[in-house]
């Protein structure tokens, strides 16, 4: 034992142990303090960071809102002007209906429709409204209306007619959505190729299918389109890119707002994109007179008259009544023609006169036809 006592190493150990313990203890303490400080700093940093991103987000939303408000009111003016211009063009078309100028008027009408559509699209992105009241219209007419709003409308062929009609509130949004899809289809396919529209009934409603023979979309484009079309992540005016791509963003907003779905993820039989618009039953209705929607725009006026025999458009309809007025079939038949009652003759001549007058007049009153 004494030999150990005399060993300086033991004494060194005895003296060194508390010293080392004290050093270790102090080290641990300072490490803990540093850790604590570090954590506090990190928390502070995160706090600052979130405050910063919050205020940046706030500023972005404010800027977005201000942009939207300004654009919305500007677009409302433009929409109003486009509508006014359309009515003016209609009047001039009636006035010069039989002259060479009509061709030019039709071109101007077409340009005005495209202009109106652009204004509507921007308005929709700014939470604005489409600004047009419509009556019930057949899906075929809605598709034709959409067709008229794109530049290369003659390339669009509507393959199927249907008895389905679109409820008044959905007429304009569905027409605008179809027009945006057709715009994409015509823009991304060769000028000589046709765009097909097919209408199909499915258990959930009616599908409008648009097939183009374009280049199609890659996976990245498809996923971007799907994101925009879902309407879950509304796109701000400031995120449209340069040059701005309105189409899918507008469609997404309208689809979410009116409750229908649009998908572009399948390929068309012609190698391009197949766009499918699924309209649920809630947006569909049947035409007031389902047999033949001859002139659907004027069906409302027709309902006011208890007409016995009218066309689907509500116009007086002539049934075969033996020898028909105005033109004697031949010399020998002129006697039998004389057998008409004066009332009949008067009504026939009256109809002829009204027809020629309204055909020539500047502003023919459309309700002016009486039931014979």
């Amino acid at each position, binding site marked *: 034992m004494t030999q150990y006592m005399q060993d300086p190493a033991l004494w060194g150990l005895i003296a060194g142990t508390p010293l080392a313990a004290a050093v270790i203890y102090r080290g641990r303490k300072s490490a803990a303090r540093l850790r604590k400080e570090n954590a506090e700093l990190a928390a502070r940093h995160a706090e600052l960071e979130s405050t910063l991103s919050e205020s940046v987000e706030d500023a972005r939303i404010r800027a977005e809102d201000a942009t939207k408000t300004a654009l919305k009111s500007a677009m*409302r003016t433009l*929409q109003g002007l486009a*509508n006014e211009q*359309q009515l003016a063009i209609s009047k001039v078309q*009636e006035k010069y*209906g*039989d002259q*060479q100028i*009509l*061709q030019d008027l*039709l071109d101007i*009408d*077409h340009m005005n*429709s495209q202009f109106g559509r652009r204004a509507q699209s921007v308005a929709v992105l700014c*939470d604005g409204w489409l*600004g*047009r*009241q*419509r009556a019930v219209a*057949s899906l075929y*007419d*809605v598709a*034709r*209306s959409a*067709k*008229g709003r794109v530049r290369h*409308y*003659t390339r669009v062929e509507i393959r199927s*007619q249907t008895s389905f009609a679109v409820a008044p509130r959905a007429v304009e949004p569905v*027409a605008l959505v179809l027009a945006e899809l057709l715009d994409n289809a015509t823009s991304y396919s060769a000028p000589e190729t046709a765009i097909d529209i097919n209408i199909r009934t499915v258990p959930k409603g009616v599908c409008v299918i648009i097939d183009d023979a374009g280049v199609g979309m890659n996976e990245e484009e498809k996923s971007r389109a799907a994101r925009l079309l879902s309407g879950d992540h*509304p796109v701000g005016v400031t995120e449209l890119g340069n040059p701005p791509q309105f189409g899918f963003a507008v469609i997404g907003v309208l689809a979410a707002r009116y409750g229908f779905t649009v998908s572009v993820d399948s390929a068309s039989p012609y190698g391009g994109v197949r766009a499918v618009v699924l309209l649920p039953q809630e947006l569909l209705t049947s035409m007031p007179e389902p047999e*033949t*929607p*001859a*002139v*659907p*725009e*004027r069906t409302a006026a027709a309902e006011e008259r208890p007409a016995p025999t009218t*066309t689907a*458009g509500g*116009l007086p*309809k*002539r*049934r*075969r*009544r033996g020898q*028909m*007025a105005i*033109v*004697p079939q031949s010399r020998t038949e*002129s006697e039998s023609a004389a057998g008409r009652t004066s009332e009949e003759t008067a009504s026939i001549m009256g*109809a002829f006169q*009204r*027809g*020629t*007058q*309204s*055909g020539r007049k500047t502003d023919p009153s*459309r309700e002016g*036809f009486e039931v014979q």
Partner: protein
Amino acid sequence: MTTPQEPDRDDIETLESGELVRPYVIINGRGFSDGNRFDLVTLVTASADSEQRWGQLDPEMRGVVDLCDGGYLSVAEIAGHLGLPIGIVKVLLVDLAEQGYILTRAPIPPAQLADIKVLQEVLDGLQARFG
């Protein structure tokens, strides 16, 4: 982004709208041919079998066939009834005539309408009464 459910009635003025389907869409961009044989008073009637096979026609064309079904109608009358510009109706008529849905007949010159026999009878009657 807010998603308004209904238009704010005070916020939006109800804009008067033109027709849903514009005339240039109805004729699908077809031009007006110069040698158009239709004028305002050309008479048009539906051909006998037109109603059996009109399923694939556009609503406006069906409207024309439907209107003419009862006999002869002038081009001006058809335009008046359909509320379309005359030029548009003429394009539709050219198409319908080509596809055999309608038949046309040139207007009868006024002089031909007068039957000599009737005129003679009137003259005789007047002479008998007042002569």
